[in-house]
């Protein structure tokens, strides 16, 4: 028992414990102690995802008495998510319950923030080799009485003579190491030059490979590509959840966190910087042979094991970094006030790209290296969209492309060589699993593919982490936990195609299967996707009428955005539709068309381009011309605010129906039964 204003809190099953100040909410306590509990709504008491169970009794092992009485008063909002039986068993919402005494808290599997599976693999795109940092090998003569020139000037003279590099500067921190490096290499050194302007590294002898990181800071996921700048090869892709997720799921809740807490920006920025540093460490770690401890520090022979090279890097070997992210992520990372990005007309603090010393940001790569942050287009179309643009280069083509980048916000690009416009629409987090009854992130156990039989309405599905579909598995083998983004796209398309729901999104009154039922708890119709026996959460996983409505809102926003942009451009069809996004690689293009994510087009013209934003960051890392191109395109793409179009409401409303209230979908003929398509 802790006296005074503190109490002991222990979380199960992780067993983490700590002393926290009384009066904190359980979520706040979990954060201090380092336990991840889902808080999709950012503690607004509306998502019900942070359910925990308070254990009752005296626990010798910990020497504490835990009781529901120590968890503060029952709040009205909890009733919505916790029924009488659960309440009896000690369930509370982590955002409502408070630490008022010692507590032993069990976090059920469904409330744990799972380790996300990220499909942010690097794609093969064509990039010209012209990195911002290049290595040059020079041999200089030893100083003598006849020629007592300084160390630096000796190198500068040689760089000019051999490579034509003029007027170079040197990083001050590096200058302090120059004499020893030069002598250690017996006057033969490899020099790293940044943008033909500044020497940022000097290594004794000859050095072959040199490395950089391209980073995509997503609202939910952060991905990093470790590249060999000499060969352009992607050595590794590492990723993590954005550590800021604990402050809320979407951009707006992060901005609000800053507005409500004086140290909010500082905290969120420190979190993402810390996250980037752990990604750097993770990427370096993977370049060492497994299990073997790092050899004597400066010795880095490429060891071959099963045909793989281990360059054995540490953070000082990372000599360049590029970063993309939406405008809010960009601002928070750089500690720029994001408040005005969150309020119409959403002006960012800065458009153009920036080169900042990594050490000034606290990013632990080579301390003399620069971090290049790509430019922003507008408040809701940031450097991540610029990344998409320089990766896909629609401005170099005659064909008109429609690029849809699906994330917590949907970003749209439309155009070609002659004209390019971009826009953003509030899809909300529905496509990322938030706000749905059984929605979850893309983690093991998440349903990612769904098929519904048109005749019987039987459901087959596949979960992440298991190759066999349900039909080919025993129920207990599935261990299903919920439905993630790609499953959410599938489910709307399949419910519609099979006739379970009508065009309006409402459940068909004539149902064929017992999977359809009225939930007695909330009096809402729902359709069971996975029976309790197939799940690891012990209850049926269903899509409710309300869930269908949430998905309709999100898809309606995207469709309406596409259509209004096409109208602005004066066209009624496009030559190519590209679907990008962390889950872009998973999108089933046929189902995307069935659910009406965008206006009708030939299935062949739809392509999935994966994480194009990350590809753009990689392009800027490997080709300095791309950095200029990014600045140019960010100011030459016309940003359009869609919500101010005068018939936005009408268009949005029509687009909420499946696939659309009025627009025709001739390309769905033969894919969707005629009687359903002609509703």
């Amino acid at each position, binding site marked *: 028992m802790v006296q005074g204003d503190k109490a002991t809190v222990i979380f199960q099953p992780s067993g983490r414990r700590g002393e926290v100040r009384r009066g904190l909410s359980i979520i706040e306590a979990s954060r201090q102690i380092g336990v991840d509990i889902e808080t999709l709504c*950012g503690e*607004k*008491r*509306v998502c019900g995802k942070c359910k925990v169970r308070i254990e009752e009794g005296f626990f010798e092992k910990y020497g504490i008495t835990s009781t529901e009485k120590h968890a503060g008063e029952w709040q*009205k*909002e909890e009733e919505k998510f916790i029924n009488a039986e659960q309440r009896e068993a000690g369930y509370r919402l982590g955002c409502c319950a408070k630490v008022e005494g010692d507590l032993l808290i069990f976090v059920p599997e469904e409330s744990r923030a799972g380790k996300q599976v990220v499909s942010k693999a690097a794609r093969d795109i064509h990039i010209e080799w012209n990195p911002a940092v290049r290595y040059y090998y020079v041999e200089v003569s030893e100083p003598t009485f006849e020629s007592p020139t300084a160390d630096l000037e000796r190198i500068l003279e040689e760089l000019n003579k051999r490579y034509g590099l003029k007027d170079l500067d040197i990083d001050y921190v590096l200058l302090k190491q120059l004499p020893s490096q030069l002598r250690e290499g017996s006057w033969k050194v490899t020099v790293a030059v940044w943008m033909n302007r500044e020497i940022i590294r000097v290594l004794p002898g000859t050095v072959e490979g040199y490395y950089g990181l391209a980073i995509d800071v997503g609202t939910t996921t952060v991905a990093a590509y470790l590249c060999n700048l000499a060969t352009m090869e992607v050595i590794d892709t590492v990723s993590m959840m954005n550590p800021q997720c604990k402050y809320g799921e979407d951009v*707006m*809740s992060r*901005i*609000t966190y800053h*507005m*409500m807490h004086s140290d909010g920006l500082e905290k969120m920025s420190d979190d993402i910087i810390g996250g980037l540093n752990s990604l750097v460490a993770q990427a370096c770690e993977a370049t060492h042979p497994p299990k073997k401890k790092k050899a004597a520090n400066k010795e880095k022979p490429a060891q071959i094991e099963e045909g793989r090279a281990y360059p054995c890097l540490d953070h000082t070997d990372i000599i360049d970094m590029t970063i993309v992210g939406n405008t809010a992520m960009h601002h928070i990372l750089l500690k720029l006030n994001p*408040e005005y990005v*969150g*309020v*119409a007309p959403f002006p960012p603090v800065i458009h153009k790209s920036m080169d900042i010393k990594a050490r000034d940001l606290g990013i632990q790569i080579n301390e003399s290296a620069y971090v290049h942050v790509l430019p922003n287009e507008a408040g809701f179309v940031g450097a991540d969209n610029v990344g998409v643009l320089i990766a896909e280069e629609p401005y170099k083509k005659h064909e008109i492309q429609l690029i849809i980048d699906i994330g917590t916000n949907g970003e749209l690009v439309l155009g070609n060589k002659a004209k390019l416009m971009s826009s953003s629409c*509030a899809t909300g987090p529905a496509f990322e699993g938030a706000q749905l009854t059984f929605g979850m992130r893309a983690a093991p156990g998440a349903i990612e593919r769904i098929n519904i039989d048109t005749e019987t309405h039987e459901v087959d599905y596949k979960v992440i982490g298991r190759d066999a579909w349900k039909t080919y598995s025993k129920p207990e083998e599935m261990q299903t936990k919920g439905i993630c983004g790609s499953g959410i796209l599938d489910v709307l398309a399949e419910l519609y195609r099979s006739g379970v729901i009508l065009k*309006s*999104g*409402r459940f068909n009154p004539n149902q064929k299967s017992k999977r359809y039922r009225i939930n007695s708890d909330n*009096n*809402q*119709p729902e359709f069971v996707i996975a029976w309790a026996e197939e799940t690891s959460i012990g209850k049926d996983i269903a899509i*409710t*009428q*309300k869930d269908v*409505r949430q998905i*309709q*809102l999100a898809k309606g926003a995207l469709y309406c955005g596409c259509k209004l942009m096409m109208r602005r451009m004066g066209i009624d069809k496009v030559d190519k539709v590209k679907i990008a996004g962390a889950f872009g690689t998973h999108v089933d293009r046929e189902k995307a068309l069935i659910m009406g994510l965008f206006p009708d087009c030939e299935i062949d013209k739809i392509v999935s381009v994966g994480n194009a934003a990350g590809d753009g960051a990689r392009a800027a890392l490997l080709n300095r011309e791309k950095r200029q191109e990014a600045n140019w395109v960010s100011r030459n793409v016309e940003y359009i*605010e869609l*919500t*101010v179009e005068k018939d936005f*409401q*009408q268009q*949005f*409303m*029509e687009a*909420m*129906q499946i696939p659309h*209230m009025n627009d025709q979908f001739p390309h769905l003929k033969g894919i969707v039964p005629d009687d359903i398509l002609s509703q």
Partner: protein
Amino acid sequence: MGKKELREELLKALSDGVVNFEEEKVKETAQKVLDEGLNAYDAVMNGLAAGMEIVGDLYDKHEYFVPELLMCADALYGGLDILRPHIKMEDLDQRLKGQVVIGTVQGDVHDIGKNLIKMMFEVAGFTVHDLGRDVPLEKFAEEQMRTDSEIVALSAMMTTTMMGMKKVVQMIKEKNPNVAIMLGGAPVTKDVTDLFGADGYAESAGNAVQEAIKMISRLREMQK
């Protein structure tokens, strides 16, 4: 057919027309109400508004969604435009419900929700002063003073703009503590309402008017 039967038949046609979003049918029926010399106020309240009440129920049950709601609204306005000029003053005076200032707060351009609430107020017989969207915060206070409205209804769809509501509540309450302030929009919860010092909040268009009526009667109690 007697006058009573005719009245009932037309009221039902108005209500059904709203529920099934048949704008033309509602317009024709509204015209017939006038041609037959029936009471326009009765037709609005017990025909159109009764239909909208059913729509509200269907929406709460998630059977109807925003598209249906908006189509029902179109049908309703079709009838309202015809009937409203013929509502007699004595009908109104007797049941005058009050005035509302409504708008979406500064920084926010989403107004679908606000428009639905506005319609509910209009149907219920309130006089509505609609300030539109992206409304400067001080404008709410000014408009309230100018019109002496009992209610100010604020809408915000984004967490960031929701913060502006707090300032509006302060501004208005400073000058006139007896004004009832309602908040609405996706990020708004009961907690936020209490924290900002507002008087009520509505989860959906359906219960906004009931909340408003409750607040007005509370205000009248206080003023007695």
